Structure formats: C-alpha cells, structure tokens
C-alpha cells in the first residue's frame, strides 16, 4: 500500500518519452521551469499548454495516474487563484457584490499564475511518471559530473540515492513487521486520541532505527568485501544513451522558447 505511494509514481510503458535519455528529460524540465516565466499573454500561455499536452500525449501515461497524484496540488492551485481574485486591485471592476469586488487584473493574474503552477507540476509529473528512480539518479550523476572537479562528492551522492531507493521496500516490509509485532504486544496504531497515536510511533521507530544501523554496518562490510574503495577508478555498468529523439526534443523546446519570446508583450 505504502509502496504504491512512492513507486506508483513510475508507470512503465513503451513511449517516446520513456525511451528518452534521463539526462535530456532533466535538462528539458529545468529549462521549461525557466521558459514558463517568459509567457505573459493568452497566446504565449496557449503555446505552453499545447506543448505540455503534447508531451503528456506522447508519454502514453493513463490520465488517472497523472491526475490521481495531483489532488493535493489542485487545492493549492485553487487557493492561489482565490488569493489573486481577492487581493489584486488593478484595472476595471468586472464584478461587484456589496464589499466584494473582482478586478480584471486580479482575474487575469489568477488564471495565469495558477496555470503556470499547474503546467510546472504537470511537466515534472511527466518526468517522474516516465523515468525509473534509478534512471533519474544515473542522469543526475552524469549531469553533475563536471562538479567532481570542484571536489563535490557526485559519485557518493548518487550511490547514497541508489542505496536509499534499493532499501525503501526492505524498510517498508520491516516497518510492517514491527507494527504487527508491536500490535501483538498491545500498541494501538490506528485508534485512540491523536496524542496516543503519535506516541505509538516511538515503539515503531526505535526498533526500525536500531535495525537500520545494523543493516548499514553489514552492507558496508559486504561492499568492502566486494572491493568497494570509493568512486575513483570505478566503471559503470548502466550506460546512458543520447539518441536523435533527445536532440529533437531539446530543439522542440528551443522552438517553443523562440515562439514565446516573439509573441510576448
């Protein structure tokens, strides 16, 4: 159940977006975050929406996965929208009811800002829905590679991330086991007042921490026994392949950027 919450993010499928190099996807998302801020009128926002929907269609991810994960975000978007409606006081009044006035600028800002927010969330969702977590790690390690010259521990960071990813299901299983064991000893996890339920987490966390430290130590020993001596001189088994699609997708984003610059006011 909890596993679904984290791993349910990645939906394996065979699509153009799935086959893209994680590096190009990361670069595109990063650039898109900047590009979104160029838009400032209906045409430019329209172009952004078309682009995002095109990406979504190409990813072949079923809609329920995309929007299922966005429920909380919608609340935030609606809140942002309402804030603008209430608080921006510029331009002619377009609606009036007693003390409550809606200004044109407020409506415009409200729509644009929430749309911007929505598009950003959507494009990052497409990234996480179409890329396995380990591929994102590999992509990051490769993109951050140049920072190694500045003594930034890129390899260690990537290894930490991949070990964390590998142990999430193991620790979930263990949490489940400890929870059952503690329930059998009379700890109530799912009923009673909130204060008691929060306190009930302690007998869950302590055994979990103790065993995690033990795991970490054993894992370190096992890694050392298999010749791990840090990142220097290591080769990589996973290989990232930059293909024509990746270049093409980057060019598409470039075209969008030029379009936005031309049509912005």
């Amino acid at each position, binding site marked *: 159940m909890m596993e679904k919450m984290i791993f349910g993010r990645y939906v394996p499928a065979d699509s153009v977006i799935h086959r893209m190099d994680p590096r190009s996807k990361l670069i595109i998302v990063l650039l898109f975050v900047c590009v979104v801020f160029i838009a400032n009128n209906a045409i430019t926002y329209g172009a952004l929406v078309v682009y995002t929907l095109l990406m979504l269609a190409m990813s072949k991810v079923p809609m329920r996965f995309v929007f299922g994960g966005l429920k909380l975000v919608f609340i935030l978007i609606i809140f942002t929208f309402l804030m603008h409606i209430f608080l921006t006081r510029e331009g002619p009044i377009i609606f009036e009811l007693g003390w409550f006035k809606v200004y044109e600028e407020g409506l415009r800002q409200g729509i644009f800002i929430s749309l911007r927010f929505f598009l950003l969330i959507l494009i990052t969702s497409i990234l996480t829905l179409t890329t396995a977590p*380990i591929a994102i790690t590999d992509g990051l390690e490769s993109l951050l590679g140049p920072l190694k010259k500045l003594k930034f521990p890129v390899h260690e960071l990537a290894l930490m991330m*991949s*070990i964390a*990813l*590998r142990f999430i*299901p*193991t620790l979930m*299983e263990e949490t489940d086991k400890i929870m059952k064991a503690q329930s059998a000893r009379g700890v109530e996890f799912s009923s009673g007042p909130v204060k008691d339920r929060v306190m009930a987490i302690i007998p869950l966390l302590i055994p979990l921490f103790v065993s995690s430290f*033990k*795991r970490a130590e*054993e*894992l370190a*020993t*096992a*890694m*050392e*026994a*298999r*010749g*791990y*001596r840090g990142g220097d*001189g*290591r*080769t*990589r*088994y*996973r*290989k990232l392949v930059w293909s024509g699609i990746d270049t093409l997708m980057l060019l598409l984003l470039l075209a969008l950027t030029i379009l936005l610059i031309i049509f912005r006011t």
Partner: protein
Amino acid sequence: MKNSLVQIRNLSFKYDENADYALKDVTFDIYEGEWLAIVGHNGSGKSTMAKLLNGLNFPKEGSITVDGLLLSEETVWDIRDKIGMVFQNPDNQFVGTTVQDDVAFGLENHGIEREEMIKRVHNALESVKMEQFLDQEPHHLSGGQKQRVAIAGVLALRPNIIVLDEATSMLDPRGREEVLETIRQLKASQEMTVISITHDLEEAAKADRMIVMNKGQLYREGSPEDIFQLDEELISLGLDIPFPVKMSKMLKGLNIPVSKHHLSEEELVEELWTSHLKM
C-alpha cells in the same frame, strides 16, 4: 596430493583490549579445491575467523598467507580479490537496485570494461541459474534466490576461494538446499575452494573436511566421519549431531548391524533396505 592454498599460523584476535580472546593460537591449512566446514556454537570464533581471512579485521598475533601473499594493510585488496564472501543476511548484502546491477557492483569496483562486465554478469547468473531474473528487484526475490545472486556477484570476480559465512542460516530448508546445491555444482565445475562457516551439522556433513572450534580455539580437525564419532563430546560443545548419525548409533545399540555411522539419510536407507540380502 593437495596443495596448501591458505596457511593460518598461531592466529590470535581480540575485539577489545580488555576482552577475552575471540581467537587464540589457531593454526591450520586450507587446501586447494576442498570443501572445508568450520563449525562451532555461537561465540566459538568461527565468524571472527571469516572476517580475519579477508582482512575485514586484522589479527593481533599470528599470520595468514593466502596463495603466497601474507595478509597486511598493503596486500588486503589483492587478498580480497582472491576470496569471495557470502554473508548471513540476504538483504544486507544486496547493493544494486536490480539483480544484474548487484552482480555488476563488484565488477564496477574493479574498474572492469563494460563489454566484459555484461559478459561476466550473464555468465555468473547463468551458473547460479538466475539468468531469467536479470531485471528483478530484490524485494521480489526469495531469500535463497538473493543468496544465489550474492554467489553470482562473488563468482563474477573469479576468486579462488569462496567463503560462506553462515550463508544459509537465515533461509528456509528449501532455500538452504538451493544454495548448497548451487555451491556443490560450482565446486565440481570450476574447481573452487569452499569454506563454509556454519552451525548446521547436516551442511557440514557434506564437506570434505571439518574443523570444530570451541572458545576461540581449534578443538578438532578431521573428516566428517571422524568428527561425528565424537558424538558425546560434540553435544557437550553445544553442537548437535545429524539425525542419520544418531540413528545409526541407536540401531547399533539395538544390535542391528550397520556398517558405520552414516552421514546422509540416503546412505543409511540404502544400507537398511539391502541389509536383509546380506544376512
């Protein structure tokens, strides 16, 4: 004539200055191509032995020589290349996110070319019969399967010696049999030297030679047949003797003539059902 591959001489070790010796004055040899079982109850020093063998701990006194190399700070990485280890907990030695990544981990550490890695990963997984699980994640595998992947990870590095440090003790009987069968086949096909550290005497009974440890000292060394003759003594050391040996002994006590203390159930059954023909 067998060649001595590892020489252990007057080895002593303490975890802490003030603690008792975990190992005291232990001397023995490990021969090329043999299956050596080191047995003993908890705290007898058998796991300490394993950790000293590939330099995860360094001895206080005495020396270890592996394939002509004396173990020291300088040679420890070369010695680790010669000795592959499989540990007790299947989860805590699985480093990769998938089966093939895990097998490749050791190879990556040794800076082996990618083309060669792919070949070795596939070969190693084939020899432990896990080749159809290449992209499987560890939490979808059984304990026995995880241990077989760990063995593949060791094999890919082509060591001379493989040490099983209680590698089957957390597995169910089926997983245990899977792992032992894998090791048996590997030993036959690749002339591997196997050291299994265990408290499971059924497992030890299948070894070529046994060493019994007690309180950090080498208590007895010999073939499984010889060792199990000591039955009362073994029990006093906190070890149990395997069922077929017990059974043979009891049959003898009832004046049913069995030729020797059988180590496997099959042998015993074989003799019993044919015994009538000999009378």
